[in-house]
């Protein structure tokens, strides 16, 4: 199912798929086709947003995140790095410290929180924006689905993506270095496991966009640990919730749309979520319409990562909890400023390699022939009913016309044309 050498963290379970086409319509990059009654994902086009996972009424699009309990013998120490979204899945009376203990009880040797790196990253982003002299606006790089969408569909905008390492990677790097010092282990003997709200981050671990290897080794879905964590929490003695690591956004802030941006010093920002709105904003940037915006926070999931397809809790409840958690545990971010400035100068936040565009392959490598094919496609499109019914198994009439030109399907497959011919 995975073609063209791109790894994807979900696949269609053919047995479960009965060709209902919901996925076809929600895919923001038109990456799905239904042929012979089964859905197929076109690897080159898929950006791992996970919309199809959520849309499938039969649960036939399955995420390929790792399972709990797969502990490989090569690792002497396994450390959990939970996405801050995890805290919002439980009542806000449950302090994150208790969730850490529960994670240890279900098998992790250590737990490292991403919240501190989130604070640092906010401060580092301020420095970057203050000193930036290139094109505006800059776009946040924490959502791997947005990053891939830009690389694939908006290759010219790749240079607009914030070139800073993301908090989850920084946390994994720091955790491994610290544990290797403290425990006298080689970094390769430590496994870092991300507790993820989405398949996009599974992909960003297996096949990072900007470097050879992620600092994270595996990812387990929040939905996978949720049950065991609940049980562990119920069995445990409550601990005083006051002594906690400190964070301005308290991590959860980042998981909610706009949480990070509100701490930047610029007033000229936009926070956008949901693939269709993200696409609209990217179109606007591409068409030079957002020239006086400095920063855009963009997440594939509606409402931010708390809306991720591998979460458990209703997004509105989770969202309200991020506010409660923030009120309880927020600290002033400014006191890290000097330290972050120093680290920033030492390239602590710099990406290992610059992000490169990943444009789609043209219809034909020869420009003349490609133009001919585009022309033919347009001709076919003009002859179609243009109602985008998708009964042909292509997501819309234009995509169908292109599929016909590519020789993937016969024009006569269009049932509306057939009905009209009668």
């Amino acid at each position, binding site marked *: 199912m995975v073609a063209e050498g791109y790894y994807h963290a979900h696949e269609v379970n053919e047995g479960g798929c009965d060709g209902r086409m919901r996925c076809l319509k929600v895919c923001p990059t038109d990456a799905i086709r239904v042929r012979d009654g089964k859905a197929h994902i076109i690897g080159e086009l898929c950006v791992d947003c996970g919309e199809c996972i959520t849309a499938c009424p039969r649960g036939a699009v399955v995420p390929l995140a790792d399972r709990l309990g797969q502990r490989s013998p090569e690792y002497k120490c396994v450390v959990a790095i939970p996405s801050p979204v995890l805290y919002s899945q439980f009542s806000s009376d449950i302090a994150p410290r208790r969730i850490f203990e529960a994670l240890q009880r279900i098998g992790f040797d250590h737990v490292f929180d991403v919240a501190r790196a989130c604070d640092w990253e906010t401060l580092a982003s301020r420095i970057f924006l203050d000193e930036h002299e290139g094109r505006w606006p800059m776009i946040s790089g924490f959502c791997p689905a947005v990053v891939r969408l830009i690389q694939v569909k908006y290759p010219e905008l790749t240079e607009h993506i914030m070139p800073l390492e993301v908090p989850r990677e920084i946390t994994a790097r720091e955790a491994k270095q610290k544990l290797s010092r403290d425990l006298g282990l080689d970094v390769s003997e430590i496994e870092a496991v991300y507790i993820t709200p989405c398949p996009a981050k599974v992909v960003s671990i297996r096949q990072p966009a900007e470097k050879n290897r992620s600092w994270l080794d595996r990812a387990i879905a929040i939905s996978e640990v949720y049950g065991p964590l609940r049980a562990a929490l119920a069995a445990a003695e409550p601990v005083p919730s006051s002594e906690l690591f400190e964070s301005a956004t308290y991590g959860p802030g980042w998981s909610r749309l706009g949480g990070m941006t509100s701490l930047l010093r610029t007033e000229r920002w936009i926070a956008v979520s949901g693939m269709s709105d993200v696409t609209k904003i990217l179109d606007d940037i591409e*068409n030079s319409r957002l020239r006086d915006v400095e920063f855009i926070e963009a997440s594939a999931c509606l409402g931010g990562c708390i809306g991720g397809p591998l979460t458990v809790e209703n997004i509105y409840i989770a969202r309200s909890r991020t506010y409660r958690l923030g009120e309880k545990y927020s600290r002033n971010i400014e006191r890290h400023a000097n330290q972050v400035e120093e680290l920033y100068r030492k390239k602590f936040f710099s990406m290992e390699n610059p992000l490169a565009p990943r444009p789609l392959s043209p219809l034909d490598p020869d420009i003349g022939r490609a133009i001919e094919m*585009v*022309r033919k496609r347009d001709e076919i499109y003009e002859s179609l009913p243009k109602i985008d019914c998708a009964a042909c198994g292509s997501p819309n009439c234009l995509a169908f016309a292109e599929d016909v030109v590519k020789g993937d399907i016969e024009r006569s497959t269009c049932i509306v044309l057939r009905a009209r011919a009668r």
Partner: protein
Amino acid sequence: MSDEGQIMLRETFTVAGGDFSHAGRVSTTIKSMLKQIGFPSAVIRRTAIATYEAEMNVVVYADRADVTFEVTPKTIRVTLADQGQGIADLELAMQEGFSTATDEIREMGFGAGMGLPNIKRNADELEINSEVGVGTTVKITINAGE
């Protein structure tokens, strides 16, 4: 530059002066055509920026324009021929920061005087002819390779 004989693709569009709600549509269309054909993204970007700036100048300063978009084996060419007030001092207009935009236009985010210099920077060749009271023709050429 005379590979005129081998025009592989030619499309024409019109732009209406003052039509801010559809402003940018022609450059968007041209860009998506270039994307589909599969030009390198740097070439697409330069063409799109130059075309957008020229299209906006028509919307802001002219009455209407005919736009011709042509692809030859070596070049992409966009020609915007407008009817309108024309440019009195072209050398001055080409300078960064020079603008005759009204306050109203500036409030919409235009009028920094960066459009023409930006076209110049992104185009491989730029030819502008203008006659006051008649109109302006802007011919943008981008080399397709690289």
